[in-house]
């Protein structure tokens, strides 16, 4: 249990090493592009995993928060000349407030009903982004100015890679901290038995709302960065299918495993790129992955591998 090499510290060092060493293997702009997208997806998934994996509350609408963050940045910097950092934080604050307001009524729902409720929430956001043509440019999307941080402009793939990689590492660190604390145990207790958690003094509604807001804000931050990185944003980023993609990443990597969320994001961002020729079958692939995991590897990749290793060691 004690000592320098705890699983949590080991995992963080491993992740930092991978992020640091990976550029040696990235040979061109396309490789960097995929790596950056993996990082942005992983940030969302780490947050979503806190909600789904640890607190046991499903969301089929988180792409909506990602898109709202992206559009907040696009509109505030593009139309209102806000500094990008202020727009990013403003978007996060707005999404935080919105998710806070939605959280209380929606998290009263459980199981299938919560899935339906969040699904509806995501679809509403998606419709608004499509229909408010004046504001969002509608289905055509809108351009986004470059990111500028106190006069410094991250240009080139390596800089973006370092920025996203650093943020991912920070997100993972924060998530690990949270889980390994009274708050994290309360979240897992909510997953285990809401009634028993209440009897232990846990205000379950409060914790569910907190983790919902945190996961929404992380999605928003990632969306803002994505908008600036891509330089263009369209409502496709907030579509239902994106939400399913995110959930599939969490499930594949392993529920209630922060590193699993990163691995899941990496695999499911990478695979469609490798199979670009089969683009039309992408949805089919995600559906098959989700079904396969549920039937054969319910715990997900990372927890299953970890268990295998533990059993080998014994």
């Amino acid at each position: 249990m004690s000592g320098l090499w705890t699983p949590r510290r080991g995992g963080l060092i491993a992740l930092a090493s991978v992020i640091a060493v990976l550029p040696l293997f990235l040979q061109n702009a396309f490789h960097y592009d995929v790596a950056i997208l993996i990082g942005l997806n992983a940030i969302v998934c780490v947050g979503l995993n806190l909600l789904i994996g640890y607190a046991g509350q499903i969301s089929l609408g988180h792409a909506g928060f990602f898109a709202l963050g992206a559009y907040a940045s696009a509109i505030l910097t593009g139309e209102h000349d806000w500094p990008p950092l202020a727009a990013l934080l403003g978007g996060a604050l707005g999404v935080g407030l919105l998710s806070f307001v939605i959280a209380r009524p929606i998290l009263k729902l459980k199981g299938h009903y919560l899935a339906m409720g969040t699904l509806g929430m995501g679809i509403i956001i998606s419709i608004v982004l499509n229909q408010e043509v004046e504001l969002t440019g509608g289905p055509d999307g809108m351009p986004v100015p470059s990111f500028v941080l106190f006069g410094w402009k991250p240009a080139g793939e390596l800089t973006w890679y370092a920025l996203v990689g650093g943020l991912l590492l920070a997100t993972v660190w924060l998530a690990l901290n949270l889980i390994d604390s009274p708050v994290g145990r309360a979240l897992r207790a909510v997953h285990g038995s809401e009634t028993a958690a209440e009897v232990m003094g846990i205000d379950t509604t409060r914790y569910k709302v907190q983790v919902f807001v945190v996961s929404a804000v992380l999605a928003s931050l990632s969306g803002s960065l994505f908008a600036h990185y891509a330089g263009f944003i369209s409502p496709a980023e907030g579509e239902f299918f994106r939400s399913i993609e995110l959930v599939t990443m969490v499930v594949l990597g392993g529920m209630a495993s922060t590193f699993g969320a990163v691995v899941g994001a990496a695999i499911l961002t990478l695979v469609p790129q490798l199979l670009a020729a089969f683009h039309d079958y992408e949805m089919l692939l995600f559906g098959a992955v989700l079904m396969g995991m549920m039937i054969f590897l319910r715990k997900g990749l990372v927890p299953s591998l970890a268990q295998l290793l533990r059993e080998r060691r014994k």
Partner: protein
Amino acid sequence: MSLLRVENLSKSFGGVTAVADLSFTIEPGAIYSIIGPNGAGKTTVINLISGIFRPSSGRIFFEDQDVTGLPPYELAGRGLSRIFQNLQVFANMTALENVMVGYHLHCDRRFLPALLRLPHIVRGDAACRDFAAELMASVGLGDYVHAEASMLPYGALKRLEIARALATRPKMLLLDEPAAGLNPAETDAIDGLIKGIAESGVTVLLVEHDMRLVMGISDRILVLDHGRWLASGTAQEVRRNPEVVAAYLGGDARER
């Protein structure tokens, strides 16, 4: 001052009255038992007192303060905890973590310090871990400290629930059928455990089917029948009460 006072408590589900006009008082430091035939409303009473259900009418006072309708987490803060008849163990955590959750109210539960893992959170968690491990040892679960909760045998799960409830440092512990499903040897051990809890100053409200256990350890017994008060008193008094005998054996010469 009474620890718990229940006044004219009623609860109905749709047209079915589970508890009707029930009043009783529990003094601190006693083992108080509620018995009654199946369907007498014992578990409903426990659920009402612990805030799982809201009463249809009537009031509940804990330490002379009106706690009627408060949610369970607030009652926990006031010193009321319970175990469940149908186990409610956090199966997604280790046994130790289950008990650590019980200590929740005595930890720093703020979000930001946890997120940044400030030094006092680390220290607090270490202390909580030691406390939980000690508590597990004291209820006879020393061997299971590092086990996954889902891997524990049934009897150990019962004890785990007791340890988790004790970790909240309650003034009053509601035990809903702690001996259900246990063999006689395990029941005897639970018997000793409950006595120990009461001796440590925690008032116990016990709902149990095992009459030998109830008669052996209770200071006072309340008998329920069809959600109504039927009798109360010491084990001796209750045992001799003809109405109680009739309720258990199915006599018909009773007034309702």
